[in-house]
């Protein structure tokens, strides 16, 4: 686990263009972003501003059209498919808006899934799954299927799945988007606890209330970062102010 404040992710000049038939959609235009270990970042902005696209690129779910992405000072684009899968498995924990639990698997099996890809022995897997479910308060539902859970419970299981492998960073894409306000707040409180425990979190949200849970809010508009509000770190990254580029 990295020390708090150590550089973790560095994006420079990231562009993403979608080509559909004869139309070019510039989803991201020249994004520069640095994330340090222990950061809790929210990315806010109106629909279509490129928040989810940015998060997808951070999670190696999508590839940019241009730009560089360094994770732990190593260029992600130098990685082959197997290495990228390994990075997704070990370094990144993704929490989706639609939960994306696998319906034919129990709660236990869903949380265990990324650990099984890592080749962790069964006993160790059981221990880690138990610990993760304990942290999110879902141990009592370990044998249930997603269809037997409420939306809030499903999202908590999704959080457990994301943290079970102790990733370097948690990426959350509108984690409360499909939840009512009570459940949404519960999930946000959970994320806050995880951050206090040392997790690095980058969260996309369009809800300004939830954006305030983060220490640093990046505002996006039309594929660009227009404002980067943090309480301590503006302009400190390698001496260059982020927002000035």
């Amino acid at each position, binding site marked *: 686990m990295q020390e708090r404040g150590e550089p973790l992710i560095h994006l420079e000049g990231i562009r993403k263009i979608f080509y559909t038939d004869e139309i070019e959609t510039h989803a991201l235009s020249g994004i520069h972003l640095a994330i340090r270990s222990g950061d809790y970042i929210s990315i806010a902005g109106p629909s279509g501003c490129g928040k989810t696209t940015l998060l997808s690129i951070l999670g190696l*779910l999508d590839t940019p059209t241009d730009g560089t992405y360094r994770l732990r000072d190593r260029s992600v684009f130098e990685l082959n498919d197997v290495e990228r899968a390994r990075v997704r498995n070990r370094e990144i924990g993704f929490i989706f808006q639609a939960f994306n639990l696998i319906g034919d698997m129990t709660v236990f099996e869903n949380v265990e899934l990324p650990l099984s*890809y890592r080749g962790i022995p*069964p006993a160790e897997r059981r221990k880690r799954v138990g610990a993760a479910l304990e942290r999110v308060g879902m141990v009592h539902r370990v044998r249930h299927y997603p269809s037997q859970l409420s939306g809030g419970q499903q999202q908590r299981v999704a959080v457990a799945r994301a943290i079970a492998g102790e990733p370097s960073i948690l990426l959350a894409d509108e984690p409360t988007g499909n939840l009512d306000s009570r459940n949404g707040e519960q999930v946000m409180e959970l994320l806050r606890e995880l951050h206090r425990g040392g997790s690095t979190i980058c969260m996309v949200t369009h809800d300004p209330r939830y954006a305030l849970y983060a220490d640093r809010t990046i505002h996006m508009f039309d594929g660009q970062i227009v404002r980067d509000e943090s309480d301590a770190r503006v302009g400190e990254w390698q001496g260059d102010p982020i927002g000035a580029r």
Partner: protein
Amino acid sequence: MRRLLESWFMDALYSLRRLAARPAYVSLAVLTLALGAGGTAAVISIVRPLLLAPLPVREESRIGILWHPGDWNEAEYLYLRPDFPGFDGMAAYMETDLTLETPGAPLRLLHGVSSTSELFRVLGARPALGRAFEDGEDRPGAEPVAVLSHQLWKDLGGNSSILGTRLKLAGSSRTVVGVMPRGFWFPDPTVQLWVPASFRPENHVGNYTLVGRIAGGGRMDRMQGPLQGIASRLGQQFQYPAQWDKTKAPSITPLREHLVGSLRPSLLATLVAMALILSMACVNVSALMLGQVGGRSTELAVRTALGADRRRLVQQLVVEAVVLGLLAGTLGAFLASLGFGTLLRALPLGPLARAARLDWSLWAAATLLGIVAATAISLVPAIVIGRGNLASAMGGARTGGQTVRRGRLEAGLVIAQVAVAVLLAAGAGLLLKSVVKLRGIDPGVRVERAAVIDATMPTQLSFDERRRAVLELLPALQGAPGVRWAAAAQKIPLRGTGHSWSLAIEGKPELEATTTYFRIVTRDYFKTLGVPIRQGRDFLPTDREGTERVTVINQALAAKYFPNEDPIGHVIHSGLGTEGEHIVGVVANVAEAYLTDVAVPARYVLYEQVPFAPQQVSFVLTARSADALPSVLRAGRATVEREGHEFAVQDAETLQRVFEEAVGASGQVASLLSLLAGVALLLGAIGVYGMISQFVTRRTRDYGIRMALGLPPRSVLSHVLTRGLGLVGMGSAIGILAALLTTRLLSSLLYGVGAHDPMALAAAVLALLLVGSLAALVPARRASRTDPVSVLREE
């Protein structure tokens, strides 16, 4: 390795659970794949040995049948024998039935071949035990020997010590000198033994078939010279009537064509039909699996996001396909066995049915192919993920509808299935119409409530002994429980040509030498078979040995030879005695040979009044009621076996079955093709239902929005139905076009129906439209009941 095995185990457990949660999809996919594996094994197990596998002879391309089967007599063969230019060898053979007498056991009838000593040499076949015939063993006075089939040898103990033992065959003791290897058969798999015939140069009778091996370097299509030479030599020695002049049109038929050629239309029709069914099954499975792609893509995208690499994804999909394939293979084994038996009964294979064996290697190959196909299709979502955008795969559709490309693919698959179903239904319709016409033909006998028991007597019995045996058994048969009438005949109707006799009519010397069908019967024959007397009388108890010889003729004979006069009282001379046979009655025409024959002259005489009696006899029993028929059949057979010590029962069946066999290949192939057409209709319906269901599912949001904006439910219903019927219509059009091009292949099986009969084709299209409409109606109704509120709320 341990991690790998563990991951396979996890994937297998997950696959089983995932498949268990989708019973409809799994049932359809497994059933369809099983149909493919099992059906392939069953059909090819039959077609391969008969049409594709080499015959159990050496270099079959050099072996042919001269002129026609049964064309030759002993004198002709012996005259030609020393020298057959252009041939390495020539043998004559004839199928015959021999009785096997074993002390303490009932007389057993064996189907055999009587041949000249060259037979095995010509065929290039060697025994597995002992030897084949030696030169000279076919001469009169030679030591009688026999060569057994592998199956008969096993029936008799399967011991090599059988060589040198003696068997009592047809009253004579023969030494067993050889046993043929397993898998050898000639000319059909029911032949159990081969014996040398004693050929005499003075014998001008016989129905032998000549089989020859072309000399090395020769070709079947270049034998006209040697054949013409044989024809010329025949002309130098023998005189032939114009209509049977053997010196004209010499020919040679390849052995394969002779042995199995008649099966080709039926087998090819079955093979083509099954291939089409298999194609439909593959298309159906493809469509079913492609329908799973959407949901699977999301799952696979999530797994990829969690760190699964491509190998892991592929492994999971392959494991699931293997699980599906193994389930299908298990069911396929059952279907293979069931299908094999059904096809054997349904196809007009005759004695060649025994050459077919269910080949389990074909089932294994077909199962493997099914697994490979299922794997290939199941990898589609992995390919989609590999090429595309994980984020969009997990993001779900933001708009309703489907990708245009996948919709076209699925529509194309459904159209293809419907086309195949129409094609098969059209073929089945043509055959069914043909069979209806055939079954509508009046054979002239009452086929209901009648049982037939075929039996053979040993050759060593004299004519008198045979006649007495037949007549003495009749009272016992008449007295069997449930029997109303009993009679015997040397040949009953509907069993092909044969048994003709020359005819001369007293007072009509101008008549050219001719023959008519000649039937030796017992007194109650016409009553038993329900043949009405049209003129004069039936046979009476006063017609017996020593009294005036009488005959009953049929209407066709009366019309031909007594066109404007009463035939009663006229005398026919058949060479049975100087006094001839007095015509006492005229009966209605009966289909003496084939069901579709026009009426031909025939005449009937009594067993008591002819100086000879053939070896074969058919006993006919009429039951008092239809319910009693099965027991009458059993009782009749038992009576013959118990009371008729001189008889070996060959077969016992109902006259209805004889009639069905007379309907011929058309009837059997029609049944089979109807079954396959039914399967095709079912698969077509599944295809239409599945495709329209997925169409509706993908458009659910569309319909929700439109209905929220005011579209009435019935419009949604008609939109979906129109889509379904449109696909069925296109498929039907293509199917009809295919039918017009291909149904002429069934021409040889059709009777009274053209290959392009419009009613049959129209019926096929209507069947598909009906089935397709019903299949589309269910999802259409579901679509019309879309709740706009819940659909829009989900977004």
